[in-house]
């Protein structure tokens, strides 16, 4: 008989204070996500974009080109057209002789900021409204559910145009508009889940222990929703990025000369025949960012899938 390898009999280091620790759903999801190559690639791309956006001033320093600086002589052809990619302007220049590379990088700041802020705000509102409506039910629920229906049936662009014509365009107003149009879909999902979760026996157990409504909502129900909320958040971010680009494309978002991907795309429209780089780079930046977030969202959903309770190798 062959002897069993010795490491089988070694017990893992044991911390008496913590006891034997089970792996949390977070740890299990992370284990699954780590084995997902697509998710990892997307994560790398997202981290890269974020780092580049944060380090935008560094690129100004390296290239010596400010984001709104116009290079009338070096940046434009004698005919006054944008110059193509070269060693001085890696991504070429735009119609005013500005460096497209630096502007794409500065545009990433706006896109990520509005994407993350607007979708976080939307998730926060959606979770609160859904949780309150689903948990209390009855009149409150009917009111909030109808409110969500109203918001979801609003024509987004008409509302945005009307609001901007009153308040005036800007980054913050775009974020508010995007959040306002995104929270209701989160709210619906959370409400539906809360409706089923509040009937669980462990909620009844908490009630029989004397727990209050707030404690039941946030300690007993919310942790069971959080996985879905995270998935929603990762899918809302790209949607918000596209929303923001749409608004600035239409001149309803961030005001020029501040660089945003939407602004750049709308400026480039008249030049796409002569300056392909002018359209291609901001467009690709938008595409890559939203694609990475969307694919990551899909993987996160798979990783939190309750059917994958145990860890399987793909």
């Amino acid at each position, binding site marked *: 008989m062959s002897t069993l390898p010795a490491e089988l009999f070694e017990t893992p280091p044991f911390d008496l204070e913590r*006891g034997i620790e*089970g792996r949390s759903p977070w740890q299990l999801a992370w284990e699954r996500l780590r084995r997902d190559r697509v998710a990892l690639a997307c994560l790398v791309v997202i981290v890269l974009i974020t780092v580049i956006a944060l380090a935008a001033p560094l690129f100004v320093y390296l290239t010596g080109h400010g984001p709104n600086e116009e290079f009338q002589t070096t940046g434009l052809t004698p005919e006054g057209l944008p110059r193509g990619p070269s060693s001085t302007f890696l991504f070429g220049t735009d119609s005013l002789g500005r460096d497209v590379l630096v502007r794409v990088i500065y545009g990433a700041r706006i896109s990520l900021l509005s994407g993350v802020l607007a979708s976080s705000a939307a998730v926060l509102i959606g979770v609160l409204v859904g949780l309150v409506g689903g948990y209390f039910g009855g009149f409150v629920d009917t009111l909030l559910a109808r409110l969500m229906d109203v918001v979801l049936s609003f024509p987004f662009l008409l509302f945005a145009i009307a609001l901007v014509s009153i308040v005036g365009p800007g980054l913050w107003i775009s974020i508010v508009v995007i959040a306002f149009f995104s929270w209701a879909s989160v709210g619906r999902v959370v409400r539906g889940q809360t409706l089923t979760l509040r009937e669980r*026996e*462990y909620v009844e157990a908490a009630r029989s222990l004397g727990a209050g409504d707030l404690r039941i909502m946030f300690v007993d129900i919310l942790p069971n929703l959080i996985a879905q909320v995270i998935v929603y958040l990762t899918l809302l971010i790209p949607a918000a990025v596209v929303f923001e680009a749409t608004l600035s494309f239409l001149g309803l978002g961030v005001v020029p000369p501040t660089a945003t991907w939407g602004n750049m795309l709308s400026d480039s429209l008249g030049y796409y025949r002569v300056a392909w780089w002018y359209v291609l780079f901001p467009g690709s930046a938008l595409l890559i960012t939203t694609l990475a977030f969307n694919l990551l969202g899909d993987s996160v959903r798979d990783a939190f899938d309750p059917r994958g309770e145990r860890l399987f190798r793909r």
Partner: protein
Amino acid sequence: MNAAGTGRDGVLLRAEGVVKHFAVGRRWFLPHSGAVVQAVDGVSLEVRRGETLGLVGETGCGKSTLGRCLTRLYDLTAGRVEFDGHDISALSRRQMRPYRRRLQLIFQDPYGSLNPRRRIGSIIGDPFAIHGVAEGRERTRQVQELMELVGLNAEHYNRFPSEFSGGQRQRIGIARALALRPELVICDEPVSALDVSIQAQIVNLLADLQSELGLTYVFIAHDLSVVRHVSDRIAVMYLGKIVEIADARTLFERPRHPYTAALLSALPVPDPDVADARQRILLSGDVPSPVDPPSGCRFHPRCPKAREECSLREPALEARGGDSPRHQTACHFPIAEGDELALAAHAEPPGAGA
């Protein structure tokens, strides 16, 4: 044990005419829409300090609803519940809090009653957190003590419910219920979701804890053999009402209500000769819907002894035919001593065999 309770004559819990109706399909803007399920309909009972009261009946007879009414998880439609001499039937949730510590519930489903996203330590620590009793290390220590009390490994403190078996999970539920040293524990079918081999362990654990901590139990089950093992007294429920209540021994030896007799005759007997010799009372039909219960005695459509009076007048729950006041039956024609239940033939509907 708790030295002599303040409640009169040692009664810890008293229910008087407890009624619980559920509105089904009712919308808040149409107060009279939908139907009404009469889950519990006028139940009165007393639980004395230190005893175990068994509560049996078929699925859907309202025993779990009654348990939740007694702990005020449900608001009563009518009637009153007294705990240790205090009327708790109309208290608000806030006013109810001090009683929550003394009145606990153990749930049927060991899977559904533990939050899958939380660690065992924090689940068992919940009562301490909610009532602000013990903090930090002291709480951890008390939780681990509780885990050992119910026969769990205290090192499993940081595990999740999904990492435990059904029996272990039920122990977790018991630990949580006992955390604040309650006086009365309502066990809502605590073993019916478990394997038979595990049932005995949990029943014995509950019995040990009772003598160790001086607990009073209301033990809800649909399995008479389990209830017989643990109960001092047993109440039999049918369609939202108690039809018979007696000392466990008396109930098993001299059942008075035909429904009790039918339940008892369905118990498995280990000796095949005895089993063959015994008459089985087969009830015809299903339990009627509690939305529209039968008139008079609710059992009359299925009762082998039913006469006309049974469908007209509702029998009161009282001592019948020279029984002691401890043995009460709600039946106009209770089974008398030596009454051969020549009922089997009658009770089996023609052509219902196979």
